[in-house]
């Protein structure tokens, strides 16, 4: 049993505080959705958990199975069992998925020789053509292909906790279904704890969730069961005082 515990997390950019004390707990096999309007701090939350440079962390803690992640480089957090699927996966010219994940497995003491077969199997699970896999990471891939590509990498790496940042954006219905099914499988059968950050309820109609958190102005302002997402769909974020809420 693994758990990610976020406590009183405060962080910002260039002196502007964006997260103002976030508390969350995600355990193995659970799927949590973090929902919120634009500007509520959703992406900042995912980046700060994963250790993306450019943010100032001013307080709180992020622990994975008791290990403090804050202050560690991103690759050590991944080694500890964390995975981040980016909202906008980055192009890395000249570096293939086989090379990158091979090095990751090697660093983790696993056999890098198995990476090709693992990738092929994960790619078929989300309906991604294998031809994409020999290309440099994310180069010349459509938005939807990039998102499937992120889930392929998640499957190969087998994290304890996965943070999915707007994995549903830019996906058509079929792709959303394939990605959601694979994530749900990994949670149910692989014991992955999932923190799915999204703006829309659409993802939750495909991905069964355990808990829903509403993030507003850098704080979790409400937590509830799946029904909360459907209520949000009806009322929008206006009830939480969001400016220009959808």
């Amino acid at each position, binding site marked *: 049993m693994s758990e990610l515990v976020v406590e009183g997390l405060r962080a910002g950019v260039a002196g502007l505080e964006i997260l103002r004390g976030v508390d969350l707990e995600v355990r193995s096999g659970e799927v949590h959705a973090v929902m919120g309007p634009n500007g509520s701090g959703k992406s900042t939350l995912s980046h700060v958990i*994963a*250790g*993306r*440079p*450019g943010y100032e962390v001013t307080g709180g803690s992020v622990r994975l199975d008791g290990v403090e992640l804050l202050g560690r*480089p*991103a*690759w*050590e*957090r*991944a*080694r500890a069992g964390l*995975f*981040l699927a*980016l909202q906008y*996966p*980055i*192009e*890395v*010219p*000249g*570096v293939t998925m086989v*090379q*990158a*994940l*091979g*090095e*990751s497995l*090697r*660093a*983790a*003491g696993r056999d*890098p020789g198995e990476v090709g077969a693992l990738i092929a199997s994960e790619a078929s699970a989300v309906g991604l053509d294998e031809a994409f896999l020999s290309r*440099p*990471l994310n180069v010349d891939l459509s938005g939807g292909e990039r998102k499937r590509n992120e889930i392929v*990498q998640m499957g190969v*790496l087998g994290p304890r906790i996965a943070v999915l940042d707007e994995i549903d954006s830019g996906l058509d219905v079929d792709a959303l279904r394939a990605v959601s099914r694979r994530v749900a499988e990994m949670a149910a059968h692989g014991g992955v704890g999932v923190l799915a950050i999204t703006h829309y309820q659409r993802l939750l109609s495909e991905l069964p969730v355990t808990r829903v958190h509403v993030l507003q102005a850098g704080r979790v302002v409400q937590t509830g069961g799946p029904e909360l997402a459907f209520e949000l769909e009806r009322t929008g974020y206006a009830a939480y005082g969001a400016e220009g809420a959808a």
Partner: protein
Amino acid sequence: MPAPVVTDFDAGLVAAIPGPAWLRDSRLSAWEHFSSAGLPSASEEIWRYSRVDDLELGRYRPPAPGSTPSRDLESLPPGLMELVAAAGERATVLVVHNGATGRVSRPQEGLAVQTPGEGLFGADGELRLPLQGPPPDVFSTLNAALCEAPWRVSVPGGARVAGPLVVVHWLEGDGLAAFPRLEVELGPQASLDVVEVMASGDEAMLVVPVTRLALGAGARLRYGQLQLLGPGAWQLANQVSRLSRDASLLSMSVALGGDYARVRTGSVLDGPGGESELLAAYFGTGHQMHDLRTIQHHSAPRSRSALLFKGAVAGTAHSVYSGLIRVEKGAKGTNAFQTNRNLVLSDGAQADSVPNLEIEDNDVKCSHASAVGPIDESQLFYLESRGVPTGTAKRLITLGFMDEVLEKFPVAAMVPWLRRELAGRLAAAGLPEPGSGVGEGS
């Protein structure tokens, strides 16, 4: 066995180098040109940023004339033999020792490899391939004065040589001054791939190579130079190409070795429809400096040149790229592009990039772009977030960055060797190789 060296670096030495009368005369003439011109200084624009002011010619001595033994490929370091073997069974191999003596093995049909190539020299001492204009710099002239064995490679019109020509210059001897020269001439519609390798041990030496490539109408040449000189070597190299009508050239320079290593690459497009693709990949660490100067010279209509030079510096290394696109009046419909990109991998390293355009005709399409900067933080984060340790991620990104050039090396079978060599040098510079775990926790 190290080659013997002599102590007189003057006209007497030039006169003592063996060869037919015409060659000896032209050497003396070149020596006069060199003597009256003198050495350049870093105050001249074309030598700006260079280390030429640190050059002490008197510290180096050419091999004693006529005394250099030839070398077999089998006597070279194993890494070099592997590289040559990668070129395959059909490769013609020429091993040149200290720029003076060479040996050809397995010459392919249609390929003439000879020294000295008769009739190559003009009255001014410059080798007289059909190249116009004055010699590109004084070191080219010095080469003409002191080159003991100018090698000439020619392919007659219409001939397509099946395997590549691999020329290995092996250089050895503490304080050696060497003047290798390779001239390649392709007749109309002829086709050839050439790889030229510069390699040495660790001794201090001065290497002044000249490479000239002349392409007849519709000829196709792919040329790759690989510079693997040792850490004590200074190199002042000149490469010149001239393209006749509809000729096509791919020219790549891979510069990894040397202490100070300069390459001046000039491509003259003076026949309509000619196409030059000029590529370079360079990596330096420690105290190394790679100094690359280019000129894309268009003097005929509808010619095209595309230049992509990519480099990386680590440690306290320095690199300089300075390039000029020159389009003469009347060269209508010219397309000329110049791109230089540099990765700076450490705080102490420096890369300078100076692009220039000189355009005298309106009906042209020219552009230049240059970039100098550290590894992209987003790319690094992306790989790290997959669990790739920082140093390994930097190595992967740097190799990926260079691969855009390396993958086009004229002999594709040599590319894996190049990648391994570059990865090894990145590792030595502190960017770990797979599995080494150097500098990173586990």
